[in-house]
């Protein structure tokens, strides 16, 4: 058993592409199948007991990454090690053990639970597949799992449709916890829930992490949430990590122009703060036709010729945490946040 803070999971240069079905036009012009580049070489570590937040906009590859980590997708290349052991080479019982120790919870608790199983059957299935407890103890263990996620024991005999969204997400978490994992990968676990219910689930995750010493990979597009929950964050854009480092520091002075744009675009809970200036122009490029060089260069206000040609690696570049920007080392001060929009205060 390793200690808290030890590296548990390490991904190195993970790549994943999907081939896209040819359109009729492509077929007629005898063009080859197109490749959608979902991950273009992703490297990071996860330490025991920590929360790593992965943030990014749609199409940045964050969900593909989650699925590669549990081998729901097989990466095309790169390596993935768990406690130093090569995960991608595992098969049979070892692979099953890995998949027990690294569990996933999904965004939509409506579709990730089997509607024809009661909560007890659902938990019992996980417990017996991985032979966590003898059959005679399954019921008692199911009750304990429900305690852990603050659901009443009566819930065990009901079906998923009888619960609200927040309660269903609790069931999803109980199911993941049933097999005593060491890492939980949560892919947008609260995005489908209302704000007041989100807080309940976030608290549950924080509490479980403290009690059970779990590592948590928290994937979200909600910057406010990730700021609250993560020790470190990785900012992804178009299949790559742009910057990875301690949450507070990145929120205070991000090193990559994309992280800064993302943070400037985040709506804050401060009235009248919005300036007229747009955080970043342009749209996300299609992963089918990624730009050459730095993936952010077509939208970047400081792009130079080198950015159009060379892909910047995720390196320290003289800073305290790595950033994939040719100019990360030469940026002194972060651009200030947009100034508040002038508006006469009323009724205060």
């Amino acid at each position, binding site marked *: 058993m390793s200690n808290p803070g030890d590296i548990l999971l390490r991904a190195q240069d993970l790549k994943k592409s999907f081939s896209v079905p040819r359109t009729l036009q492509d077929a007629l012009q005898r063009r080859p199948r197109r490749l959608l580049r979902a991950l273009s070489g992703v490297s990071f570590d996860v330490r025991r007991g920590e*929360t790593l937040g992965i943030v990014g*906009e*749609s199409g940045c590859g964050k969900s593909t990454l989650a699925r590669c980590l549990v081998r729901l997708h097989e990466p095309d290349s790169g390596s993935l090690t768990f406690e130093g052991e090569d995960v991608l080479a595992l098969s049979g019982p070892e692979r099953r053990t890995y998949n027990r120790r690294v569990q996933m919870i999904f965004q939509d608790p409506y579709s990730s639970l089997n509607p024809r199983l009661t909560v007890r059957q659902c938990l019992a299935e996980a417990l017996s597949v991985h032979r966590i407890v003898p059959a005679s103890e399954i019921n008692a263990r199911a009750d304990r799992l429900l305690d852990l996620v603050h659901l009443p024991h009566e819930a065990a005999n009901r079906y998923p449709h009888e619960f*609200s969204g*927040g309660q269903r997400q609790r069931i999803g978490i109980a199911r993941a916890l049933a097999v005593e994992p060491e890492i939980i990968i949560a892919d947008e676990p609260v995005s489908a829930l*209302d*704000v*007041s*219910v*989100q*807080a*309940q689930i*976030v*608290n549950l995750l*924080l*509490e479980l992490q403290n009690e059970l010493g779990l590592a948590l990979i928290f994937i979200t*597009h909600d*910057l*406010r*949430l990730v*700021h*609250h*929950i993560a*020790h470190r964050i990785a900012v992804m854009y178009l299949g790559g990590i742009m910057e990875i480092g301690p*949450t*507070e520091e990145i*929120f205070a002075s991000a090193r990559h122009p994309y992280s800064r*744009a*993302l943070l*400037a*675009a*985040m*709506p*804050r*809970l*401060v*009235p*009248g*703060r*919005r300036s*007229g*200036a*747009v*955080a*970043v*122009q342009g*749209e*996300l490029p299609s992963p089918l036709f990624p730009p050459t060089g730095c993936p952010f260069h077509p939208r970047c206000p400081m792009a130079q010729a080198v950015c159009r040609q060379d892909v910047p690696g995720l390196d320290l570049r003289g800073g305290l945490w790595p950033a994939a920007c040719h100019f990360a080392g030469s940026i002194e001060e972060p651009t200030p946040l947009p100034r508040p*929009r002038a*508006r006469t*205060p*009323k*009724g*205060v």
Partner: protein
Amino acid sequence: MMVSVEPLLRVNDMHVSFETGHGSVRAVDGLDLEVRAGEVLGLVGESGSGKSVTLRSITRILQPNARVKGQVFWRGEDLLRMSETRLRAVRGAEIAMIFQEPMTALNPVLPISLQIDEALVAHTTLGRAARRKRAIELLGLVGIPAAAERLDSYPHEFSGGMRQRAMIAIALAADPALLLADEPTTALDVTIQDQILKLLLRLVDDLGMAMILVTHDLGVVAETCSQVAVMYAGRIAEAGPVEAIFYHPRHAYTHALLNSMPDSSAARVALKPIPGQPPRLDRPIQGCPFVPRCTWATPPCESRPPIVTVGPGHVSACTAAHRLPSRIVPA
């Protein structure tokens, strides 16, 4: 920003219910609302609070099983009692609407040019060439680059953000005085959301429009709206200027909702969720609908609290209005 005194739109004691196989569901339950020229009113609430239904009731585009009661005065005329012909002249021309999902709101088999043209034919007297010129102008206005070349594109050739811009262009075709925006940026990424919200704010200022922005995102409200109405279970909990609502909430629900949000000053501590669930709307609610989840509730809350003025332009339906502490919002 000039704000005139006489409201452009005034909703008076509106009730909306839907007849379903399992009885009647009350989506909106006695709602009052006012929008003045030049104002951006945020209508905020969680799912099922009735914010979208309110918006759709104003222009009468609800499903046939909806029953709408009350009055909606638009420049002195009641939209709910207006003839279908007259309503058609108002809808789209004076009051325009944009939706959350532009892919379903736009017609996928018609080019954008034709969809803007439809609005121009219906609401202006321009000739064919002038309409095409105006359409290009509109696409330019909403920030679509190379508007003349993009005009004949189909919706599927546009990205999500571009589609939303195209929908805004269609809505602006007849120079409306009020824009109803139903979660216009919910389906968009945060950098694109930022672009669209700033575009909408610029248009509101430049064209002198008023806007009702329906959203569940309090951050969007804080940064975009001048006025806010907070909805809960089909009723207005409180309404007033955005600064007043965020710094001095006068309804226990608003107070609890704002306090449940993660704030940057205290990372990784437990949040303060609102316990329980919103009430079911298929049963009558006697008192304040928030009572079962409220930590400030007292016996008077068991009968429906009236909406009272609690500050300049600030109203609330909460008996605890003056007991709630002010909030400190990190700058």
